[in-house]
C-alpha cells in the first residue's frame, strides 16, 4: 500500500529506519521536572532516617559519654530537668538522661534484631509455603491464621510468661509474634513471582527446586518485606517496652525505656512527670522514626 497523494519532490524519498532524521525534530523540552531532590519527594523518609541516625549514634556512643546510670545520689532525688540532669533525677537520685541513653542501646538493638529475625525466618517460611504449595502451604496458612487470631501483644505476653523473664526470651517471644506478617507478605509475592518467566529459565538451567526457590525467587520477593521490617522494628520497640511496663520480660534494674516508665509511673500522681514521660517520649520518637521510614518507603499497612 502506498502513501496517499503525490509526494512533493522537495522532500525527497522516505528514510530507512536508522537513518533517522533526529536533527529534524525539535529537542526535548528542557528542564524536565523529573528529578526533585530526595528530601522533597519523600520528606518523611529523610526525617525518619535522620532521627533514627541520631538514635543509633546515641545508642552506640552515648553510654561512653554519659555517667553511670546506676549511680545513686539520694540527696539529689526528684530533681526536675536542669542543665546538670537533662531529664532530671528519679527517686534514687539517678540521672534519668544517663539511664535513658543506656536504655537506648538496649531498645534500639532489640528492635532491629527482632525485625531482622522475624523477616529472615518469616520470609524463608513464606517462600517455602508459596513456592512449593500443597499441604505444606495449607498447614502454614492455618497456623498463621490461628497465630494472627491473637493480638500480637497478648501472644508475646503469654510466651514470655511461659518461658520466663529474660532479654533473650523477650526477643524470641516478640519475634514469634511478628513472624506471621512476613510469612504472609513473602508468600503473596512468591505466588506472583513464580509465574514469571525467569523462574522457568532457572528451572530449565537445571537448578533444583530448592535452589530456584531460594536463590532466584526469594530475592525478588523481598521488596515489601524490607519495608515491613522498618515498621516492625518500631512496633517491636513498643511491644518490648509495653511488656516491660507490665513487669514482663525485661525487669528492673535493667535500663530499658519501658522499665523506666513503669518505675516512674507512680511519680506522675505526685507531679514528678520527668521520670516517666522522658523515657516514654523516647520510645514514641523511636517508633515514629521507624514509622516514617516505613511509610515513605511505600507501606501503608495498618
Amino acid at each position, binding site marked *: 500500500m502506498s502513501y496517499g497523494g503525490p509526494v512533493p519532490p522537495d522532500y525527497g524519498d522516505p528514510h530507512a529506519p536508522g537513518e533517522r532524521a533526529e536533527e529534524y525534530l525539535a529537542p526535548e523540552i528542557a528542564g524536565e521536572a523529573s528529578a526533585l531532590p530526595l528530601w522533597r519527594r519523600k520528606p518523611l523518609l529523610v526525617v525518619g532516617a535522620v532521627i533514627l541516625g541520631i538514635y543509633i549514634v546515641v545508642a552506640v556512643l552515648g553510654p561512653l559519654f554519659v555517667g553511670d546510670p546506676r549511680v545513686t545520689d539520694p540527696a539529689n532525688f526528684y530533681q526536675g530537668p536542669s542543665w546538670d540532669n537533662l531529664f532530671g533525677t528519679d527517686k534514687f537520685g539517678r540521672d534519668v538522661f544517663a539511664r535513658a541513653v543506656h536504655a537506648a542501646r538496649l531498645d534500639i538493638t532489640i528492635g532491629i534484631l527482632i525485625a531482622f529475625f522475624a523477616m529472615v525466618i518469616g520470609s524463608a517460611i513464606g517462600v517455602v509455603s508459596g513456592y512449593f504449595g500443597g499441604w505444606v502451604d495449607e498447614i502454614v496458612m492455618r497456623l498463621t491464621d490461628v497465630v494472627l*487470631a491473637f*493480638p500480637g501483644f497478648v501472644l508475646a505476653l503469654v510466651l514470655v510468661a*511461659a518461658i520466663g523473664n529474660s532479654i533473650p526470651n523477650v526477643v524470641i517471644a516478640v519475634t514469634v509474634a511478628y513472624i506471621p506478617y512476613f510469612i504472609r507478605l513473602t508468600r503473596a509475592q512468591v505466588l506472583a513471582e513464580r509465574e514469571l518467566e525467569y523462574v522457568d529459565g532457572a528451572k530449565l538451567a537445571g537448578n533444583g527446586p530448592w535452589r530456584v526457590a531460594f536463590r532466584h525467587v526469594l530475592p525478588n520477593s523481598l521488596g515489601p518485606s524490607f519495608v515491613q521490617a522498618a515498621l516492625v522494628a518500631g512496633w517491636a520497640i513498643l511491644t518490648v517496652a509495653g511488656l516491660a511496663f507490665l513487669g514482663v520480660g525485661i525487669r528492673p534494674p535493667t535500663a530499658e525505656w*519501658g522499665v523506666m516508665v513503669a518505675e516512674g509511673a507512680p511519680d506522675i500522681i505526685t507531679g514528678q512527670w520527668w521520670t516517666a*514521660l522522658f523515657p*516514654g517520649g523516647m520510645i514514641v520518637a523511636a*517508633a*515514629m522514626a521507624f514509622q516514617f521510614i516505613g511509610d515513605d518507603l511505600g507501606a*501503608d499497612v495498618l
Partner: protein
Amino acid sequence: MWRYLGKRLLVSVATVVGIVIIVFFIVRVLPGDAAVVRAGPYANDEKVQEIREQYGLDDPMLVQFKDYMADAFTGNLGVSIRTNGNVTEELLERLPASLELAFYSVLLAAVIGIPFGIVAAARKGTWVDGAARVFAVLGSSMALFWLGLLLIYFLFFRLRWFPGPIDRLAVGTEPPGTITGFYTIDAALRGQFGVMVEAFRYLALPVLTLGLVLAAPILKMVRASMIEALESEHVRTAKAIGVPYRQILFRDGFRNALLPVTTAIGIVFGYMLGGNIIVEFLFAWPGVGRYAYSAIQVNDLEALQGFVIVVGVLYVALNVVIDLVYAWIDPRIRLGTKVTA
C-alpha cells in the same frame, strides 16, 4: 448468603479450637519446667512437687491434654493460684468492666477516625489531609502507657478536670444494680444520673487514651478506601450523570467504602483486646485485663491461660459478627454472585 455464613462459622469454630490447643502447648510444652515456673522463684523443691501433683503436671502429656480439652470445652478454665477462685467465674465477673471500656473507646475512635478520614479523602492533598496523615503516624507509633500517663498528668494532676486513675467510680459510691454491667447504662436505667455522670468521668481518661490511639488505624483505613472509592469508575459515572458532590461522597463513595471500614473496626477491636491490659493496669480498671496483669505478676498460669482463651474466643466471635454485618452491607455477598440476567 447462608452458605457463606455457615462456612465462616465453621472456620471460626476451627480457629477457636486451634487457639485452645496452641495455648495448651505454649504453656506446657515450652522449655522450662512448668511446675517451677508456676511455683515462682521463691519456692523450694517440696512446694514445686506439690504444685506438680496439684496440677497434674506429672501425668503423661496425653492425659493432660485430654483433661485440659475436656475442661476447656465445658467452660472450666481451672482454679487461680492467686485467688483460689474459679477462673471462669472471675473472668465473667470482670468482663462487663472491660466491655464498657472497650465499647466507649471504639466509639470514640470511630467518631474521630471516620469523619476525619472521609474529609481527608475528599480534600486529598490539602492541609486537612496532611493533618490526618500526621495523626495517623502519631497514632501508629504511640505507646499506650505513655499517652495514658501524659493524660493523667495534664488532665488530672494539673488541670483536675477528671478524677485520678483509681477505679470505675469514686471510693464510697455504690455501683448501680446490675442490668447490663455497664455502669453508665445501668445508672441511667435506674434513674441514678449522678452516678451515671460520675461513671463517665472515671471512664474519660482511659477511653481517651485508647480511643485516640485506635482512631489512627480507623482513619487510615477510611481514608484509603474512600480515596479508592472516589477514584473508582462508578463515581466517574455518577459525576457524568450530575450527582452533586455531597451525595457522591456519601452514597457512592462512603457506602462502598463501608466494607473495608467495617473490617478495620474489627481489627481495631482486636488490637484493643491486647492493649486493654496496659490501660486497665494503668487506670486500675477492674476488668479482665487487670486480672491478667495480676496473674502475670505471680505466674498464675491457669488464670492467664483462661484469659487468653477468652480473648481469643471473643475475637473470633467478633469477626463472625463483622462478617454478618459485611453480608448485610454488600449485596454481592448477600445475594450471591450468580448472574441472573
